[in-house]
């Protein structure tokens, strides 16, 4: 949630500074230079990426993740609980695999010294949220598989 507060703050401050405060101060005769916030969109974007991948865990925990509905009802209802546990275990394993490959990507980015487009700072600490997010979601699925009572009810509706 903090990430979304930061996104809102950075974008709103940048636009207000550039479009309102700057022109107003110049109108009043002040030489204020640039009044937007340098790199604000990039900071907000990185905050969103961090928020999204950490939010993957929240979405999993609250059952808010998106589910394609096409195959709903193909499995007899009586098999439901067992199939759910199996699906959770398989999903957890797949997410662990994705987390591993995400970590390989982050490692290669760190070794290559990739930097952020605007700030010349290493980008890998931001990229590291990708494996962390998938790993966090994987752990939750393993917990659902082991203790099905902790599994959240899927939402009635998704948009």
């Amino acid at each position, binding site marked *: 949630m903090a990430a979304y507060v930061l*996104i*809102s703050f950075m974008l709103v401050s940048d636009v207000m500074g550039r479009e309102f405060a700057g022109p107003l101060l110049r109108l009043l005769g002040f030489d204020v230079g640039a009044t937007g916030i340098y790199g604000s969109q*990039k900071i907000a974007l990185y905050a969103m990426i961090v928020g*999204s991948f950490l939010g993957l865990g*929240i979405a999993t925990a609250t059952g808010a993740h*998106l589910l394609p*509905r*096409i195959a709903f009802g193909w499995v007899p209802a009586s098999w439901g609980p067992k199939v759910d546990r199996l699906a959770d275990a398989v999903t957890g394993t797949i997410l662990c695999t994705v987390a591993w490959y995400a970590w390989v990507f982050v490692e290669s980015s760190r070794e290559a010294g990739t930097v952020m487009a605007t700030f010349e700072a290493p980008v890998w600490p931001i990229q590291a949220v990708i494996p962390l*997010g998938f790993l966090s979601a994987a752990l939750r699925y393993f917990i659902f598989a082991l203790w099905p009572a902790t599994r959240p009810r899927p939402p009635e509706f998704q*948009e």
Partner: protein
Amino acid sequence: MTALLLVALVHTFWGAGRLEYVVEDMWVALDKDVILAIPMFVLCGGVMTKGATARRLIDIAAAATQHLPGGLAVACVMSCGIFAAISGSSIVTMLAVGSVMLPALMNNGYPGRFSLGLVMAGGTLGIVIPPSVPLIIYGLVTETSITDLFIAGIGPGILLLTVFAGYSMWVNRHLPTKPFSMAQLLQALRRGVWALMMPVILLGGIYTGWFSATEAAAVGLLYALLVEIFIHREMRLPEFGSVMLEAAKLGGTFFPLLAAAMSLNLVLTEHRVPEAMVQWAQQYIHSPLAFMLIVNALLLAVGCLVTTGEAILILAPLLAPLAVAYGYDPVAFGVIMIVNLEIGFLTPPVGLNLMVAMSAFKQKFGDLVVAAVPWILLMLACLALVSWQPWIAMYLVGGGA
């Protein structure tokens, strides 16, 4: 998960076989500033929904239309249209306006089936009239200007509003009307003018080029907070926390999916799949009209089975190059695609507005499906018109199609 597996399979069999490239593509896909518009518009719509905006907009629309035949139904259509220009979401629009208007319509003698259909169909305007989250997704996956898409959404939005309002007047032409009261309208305007200014600021800022879509969303959020907390005083700052939490959940569900889908698009583009599809299609489909008919039939079928977001993520990158090859502007095609998928909100088995209405308005699914039929036909007519005459979308963008 399904999207990730699909991308991994494509990378394994057709790509370089190194699965870390999937994650790299996901990073490249998300590292785009324009993506920020999505959480901003979600936050903006969330704030306006928590507050008193919908009720005040409805009061203005009701005061302006009560002298017309079927005036309250027309007010419902107008309220949905104005709220759609704030929220960018179909379900939010339907619930915000429908929860107030449906009881009012029933109490004033409007037929129940008509009223349910009206509220459900009015809600779908949320994804056509800008700002629209599905239009942003289309712009992202096809690299089309989101500003142009927003402007192009205005024409079809007005067309749908006009058709819905005209149908509402015709169906309810025998119901009694109330005399027009300028005093009542002015009073409603005084109470609701701040809410009414929201779409003017959002769309005006984008249309005049003062703001980008992302900046307009940020300004809209600040404006919505100021209006709801300090002017309407029907929302407290701590309540913004729950709006933020909803946005964070959406981020956690949607953005990894968006990244996976865009990663898939990068692989498909690298292997020139869209070009191959264009060549294949042009062997069998020779006229743009036939292409448009087939695509619309496909999208209508897909819209019955999957949600709008999924349909756009999967199909837009494949269909948009085809549309361009047949002479359609990608902006016009995007709007046609959204108008088409809008109908999917009202079609079983996964019509989201049907399912939400079933729960929110305590109605049987079958009754809701029947109630939606005339509105689906009206929307199909509008879709046909926009597909046949794309200038309806493109006129304000400044080009034909």
